[in-house]
């Protein structure tokens, strides 16, 4: 087994994949705690479908380096979805549901109508479940992923105390003059960035798992916000690494293997919580 792994390690794309996968897992877990606690988990899911639609459009328009197109579209949708929370005709979760299934349908429709690929269902499957895209990243995409990941982590650390305040009690934060809208916007934009990054790793359907599972697992074990956040990041990275190694050695799809490891970790954490009581 170790031999197989060492054999794979010689390929640069495997090393890229492990590095980028680790960084993406780290980023996606950080905001998970906030999203779960703010009852925003569904926004991640909605946005991932938007990212799928945008990828389809990018494919049809044959825009090279489609992350540069998908990223702004997803960020824009994140901002719009957050805005609809207040004073819109279609409220919160309904708006998210509408946008997400809409993007999914239009994306698939466009792919069907205009795709030049001979293996359409293979393409769709790859975008939805990210089967191998982490292994086929260009070097420029690796650097883009790495740069954005570092930016996300830096932003999170810089705004950690304010994110905590806004997550725990929006009204109190607003009353003492914290710009709650600004931070909600920041959260939405960062989530959109994370989703586009994570699409490479697990595909658009499975992104939510990457965001919420580590947070939920960590919340079983730790009682402080800081503890939950750190544990969530560590768990996410460990699960992603384990998942990728299993996938590479065992030849299973990367995305679903990582999510399966995340689920296993959650079950272990829940069991520990249960037996502690």
């Amino acid at each position, binding site marked *: 087994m170790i031999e197989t792994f060492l054999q794979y390690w010689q390929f640069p794309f495997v090393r890229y994949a492990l590095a980028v996968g680790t960084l993406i897992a780290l980023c996606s877990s950080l905001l998970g705690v906030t999203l779960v606690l703010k009852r925003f988990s569904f926004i991640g899911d909605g946005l991932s479908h938007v990212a799928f639609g945008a990828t389809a459009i990018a494919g049809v328009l044959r825009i090279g380096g489609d992350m540069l197109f998908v990223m702004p579209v997803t960020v824009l949708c994140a901002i719009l979805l957050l805005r609809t929370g207040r004073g819109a005709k279609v409220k919160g979760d309904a708006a998210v549901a509408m946008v997400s299934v809409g993007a999914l349908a239009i994306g698939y429709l466009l792919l069907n109508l205009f795709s030049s690929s001979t293996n359409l269902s293979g393409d769709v499957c790859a975008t939805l479940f990210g089967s191998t895209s982490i292994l086929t990243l260009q070097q420029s995409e690796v650097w883009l992923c790495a740069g954005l990941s570092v930016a996300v982590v830096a932003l999170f650390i810089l705004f950690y105390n304010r994110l905590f305040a806004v997550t725990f*009690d929006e009204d109190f*934060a607003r*009353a003492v003059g*914290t710009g709650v809208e600004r931070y909600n916007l920041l959260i939405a934009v960062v989530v959109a960035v994370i989703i586009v990054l994570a699409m490479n790793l697990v595909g658009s359907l499975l992104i939510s798992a990457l965001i919420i599972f580590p947070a939920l697992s960590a919340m079983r074990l730790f009682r*402080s916000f*800081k503890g*939950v956040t750190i544990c969530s990041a560590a768990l996410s990275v460990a699960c992603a690494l384990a998942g990728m190694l299993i996938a590479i050695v065992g030849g299973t799809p990367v995305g679903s293997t990582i999510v399966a490891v995340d689920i296993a970790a959650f079950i272990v954490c829940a069991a520990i919580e249960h037996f502690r009581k």
Partner: protein
Amino acid sequence: MPLITCRDLAIGYESHAILEHIHFAVDPGDYLCVVGENGSGKSTLMRTMLGLQRPLAGAIEFGDDLRQNEIGYLPQQTAIQRDFPATVREIVLSGCQARLGRRAFYSRSDRALADANLARMGMAGFAGRCYRELSGGQQQRVLLARALCATGKLILLDEPVSGLDPKVTAEMYALIDGLNVDGVTIIMISHDIDAAVRRASHILHIGGEVFFGTVDAYRQSPQGRRFMEEVST
């Protein structure tokens, strides 16, 4: 000079006014209780004073060097908070968020302030405990300590004793009285008209005919008499 003056205030959502023509002023050291039936607009009034929503008409003026973001706020707890994984210290420290300014992290003096306010609320030994594992009364004390970190001048309390048993309610009232004695101005929304009349210096009765004045004047007023009779029967 009053800390807060409301002139001909109208409050409500969008263009629908719940309450109009509210006049009152709160001086430093006052203990104002806002009473009225459910749905009369007590919480809306409080949210408007905190700047969480705009007044439909009229004005709220802040005097005596008080800024709108210098009001300590004790909100009613939400479901999210009851289940929130955070330590008591993390929560109290978040009361210092306005002191952060452009800094990213809390300073030593912020931490000292948080610890001092925890001790003031009799919760000094609880700093490392998990918030969601505390009793209702202990949680209220933690949130009160957080409000004190935001200000030493004026505290707004939204139904601070709702859901607490009689003994804990009495303790909570005693803590609030103690703050008022120390010079903190108190504005409290309350269902508990008996306690309000016994403890407050002023009463603002909203819903129907608006009354604002001292407790003694309230006892003599038609609103006060009617409301107190209703409660005692």
